[in-house]
């Protein structure tokens, strides 16, 4: 008699793990690998939907791996936020997997592409479910290893250079994370997040707790690429092949943001007086530096990379204000942003295929050559800038509204200004790549075959439709985000689900 909870929580870990395993075992059999990837993406989507349906009413599901009881073993936990993140991971897995079938870079090294993509999804989906700090660290490592492999796919000199920067700086962040985990274990005697949440207030040396909280914040801030630790991101993302860049842009930094939200709502809630002001500073800096960096660049992927950074700033605004409404704003923003950002990177890849270049100076006349591409670009681009009625409008509205409600006027002001500058960047891409006459030296690109068009545009259209749907029917997702924000702020359900009735209050 199978136990429903154990299944629901284990499947999002198990499916991509087996996909990576069989994908590697089928080395040299591309047809089987392709079928496997499509099959696992569909399975993961179904599993994520079931999980989300099970936690939508506010229950928190927890499963103790290997039947080792809570504060000692590894716990997988799914609350509203975690389940939503798993679902969006599954959507990204499906979208990039389909898109990659028409991507030359990915298909040239297909034998490695399939298992590496599955391994990345394995790490990301499991990180969202981790209820244990050390376990979270392990998932970060899984992500780092597989993303390193993905980054060098199609390996030119430029990519190896970028991968080295990426790997080295991320390793530093991971090491800081590990040191902080050790210190926190020394202070509280536990690695389980729920147990930690109960024990942290009782630690006599609160100064040491603050130091550890700062270390963890620095580690996750580097992973999330926020100001001033963002420099690895624009140094590496623009060299990756299109589907890799898309899934990186969608998921990797967001795992860092997720870890920040989890840690600073559950383990170190607003009790740490310095957290709020530091987060305001980070949020404001991230939004501004990102958007100004984007304004200075003339290469599509570089512009988009800098916009990842500026958008992360909005998510941090929610954490800085830390009211349930503000955290709901962050949750909504993450969900909206992942879809829009991945879509823009996929479109950038299609622009390069149709127009022959990523450089705005060499692109031109795409509107005439392929009006559909222009339309498909307009949806996520305007959503990113926050124009109604697209998803970005509601996301920005929630964040700015929470800022006004908690009277952080200046933070809300910066958020609005950043939105305007984002619009400027998107218009720049539009005017240069789509509208202006093609330049003299515009490169010739081979026209897309019917099959390639279908594979490239299918995921783009689907993600665009999700953006539109969120924009037109924002109510359900906003209600869900508010409920998630409430659940993250109250904490009790999470702790009770993990530790059972009493827990081990010291």
């Amino acid at each position, binding site marked *: *008699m*199978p*136990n429903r909870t*154990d*299944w629901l*929580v*284990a499947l999002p*870990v*198990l499916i991509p*793990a*087996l996909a*990576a*395993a*069989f*994908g*590697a*075992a*089928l*080395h*040299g059999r591309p047809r089987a690998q392709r079928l496997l990837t499509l099959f696992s993406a569909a399975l993961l989507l179904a599993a994520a939907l079931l999980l989300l349906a099970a936690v939508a009413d506010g229950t928190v599901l927890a*499963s*103790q*791996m*290997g*039947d080792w009881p809570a504060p000692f073993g590894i716990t*997988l936990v799914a609350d509203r936020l975690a389940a939503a993140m798993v679902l969006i991971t599954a959507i990204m897995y499906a979208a990039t997997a389909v898109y990659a079938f028409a991507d030359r870079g990915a298909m040239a090294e297909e*034998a*490695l592409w399939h*298992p590496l993509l599955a391994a990345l999804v394995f790490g990301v989906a499991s990180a969202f479910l981790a209820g244990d700090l050390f376990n979270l660290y392990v998932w970060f490592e899984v992500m780092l290893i597989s993303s390193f492999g993905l980054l060098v796919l199609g390996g030119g000199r430029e990519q190896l250079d970028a991968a080295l920067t990426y790997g080295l700086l991320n390793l530093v962040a991971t090491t800081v994370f590990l040191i902080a985990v050790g210190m926190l274990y020394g202070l509280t005697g536990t690695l389980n997040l729920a147990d930690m949440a109960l024990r942290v207030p009782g630690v006599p040396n609160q100064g040491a707790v603050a130091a550890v909280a700062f270390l963890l914040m620095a580690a996750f801030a580097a992973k999330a690429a926020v100001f001033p630790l963002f420099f690895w991101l624009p140094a590496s993302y623009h060299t990756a092949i299109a589907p890799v860049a898309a899934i990186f842009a969608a998921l990797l930094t967001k795992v860092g943001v997720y870890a920040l939200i989890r840690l600073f709502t559950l383990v170190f809630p607003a009790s740490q007086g310095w957290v709020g002001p530091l987060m305001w500073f980070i949020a404001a800096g991230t939004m501004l530096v990102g958007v100004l960096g984007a304004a200075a660049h003339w290469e599509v992927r570089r512009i988009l990379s800098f916009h990842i950074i500026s958008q992360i700033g909005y998510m941090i605004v929610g954490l800085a204000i830390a009211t349930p409404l503000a955290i709901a704003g962050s949750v909504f923003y993450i969900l909206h942003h992942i879809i829009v950002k991945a879509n823009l990177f996929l479109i950038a890849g299609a622009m390069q295929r149709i127009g022959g270049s990523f450089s705005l100076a060499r692109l031109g006349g795409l509107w005439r050559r392929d009006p559909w591409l222009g339309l498909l670009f307009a949806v996520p681009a305007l959503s990113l800038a926050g124009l109604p009625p697209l998803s970005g409008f509601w996301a920005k509205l929630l964040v700015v509204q929470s800022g006004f409600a908690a009277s952080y006027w200046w933070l809300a002001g910066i958020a609005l200004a950043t939105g305007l500058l984002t619009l400027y960047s998107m218009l720049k891409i539009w005017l240069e790549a789509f509208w202006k006459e093609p330049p003299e030296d515009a490169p010739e690109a081979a026209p897309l075959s019917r099959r390639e068009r279908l594979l490239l545009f299918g995921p783009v259209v689907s993600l665009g439709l999700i953006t539109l749907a969120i924009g037109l029917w924002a109510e359900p997702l906003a209600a869900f985000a508010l409920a998630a924000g409430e659940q993250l702020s109250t904490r009790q359900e999470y702790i009770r689900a993990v530790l059972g009735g009493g827990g081990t209050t010291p």
Partner: protein
Amino acid sequence: MKDSLILRASAGYVLVAAVVFSLFVLLRGHNEPGGGFIGGLIGALGFVSYGLARGAAATRRALRLAPIAWAGIGLALAAASGLPALLWHGEAFLTHQWLSGTPLGTTLVFDLGVYLVVLGFGLTFVLPFLEE
């Protein structure tokens, strides 16, 4: 180094000895120091020394499958060892099951999986260097 007659002649025996010893370490890990990780490393070293003597191509033939495929099989075994608990016993993922009265159980499958993952990944990274 490939020209050394002694090295070439002994390579096969060294490989067999290393693999047998690595399996011993794997099984010993049940209750004593050892286990899949260290066993996999020892096994990989056996194949590397074989590769030094006979070349990477011969090592790949001796492995039958691509090293990355062995790693995949290992990961599949490790993940599958957690499934009986979910499927038949209504327990959490990776709760290990035992053949009644014996020390045999799904933990051995898990450890064998770790062994193959380490062996496979180790050789995936090392063999290209022997090819140069």
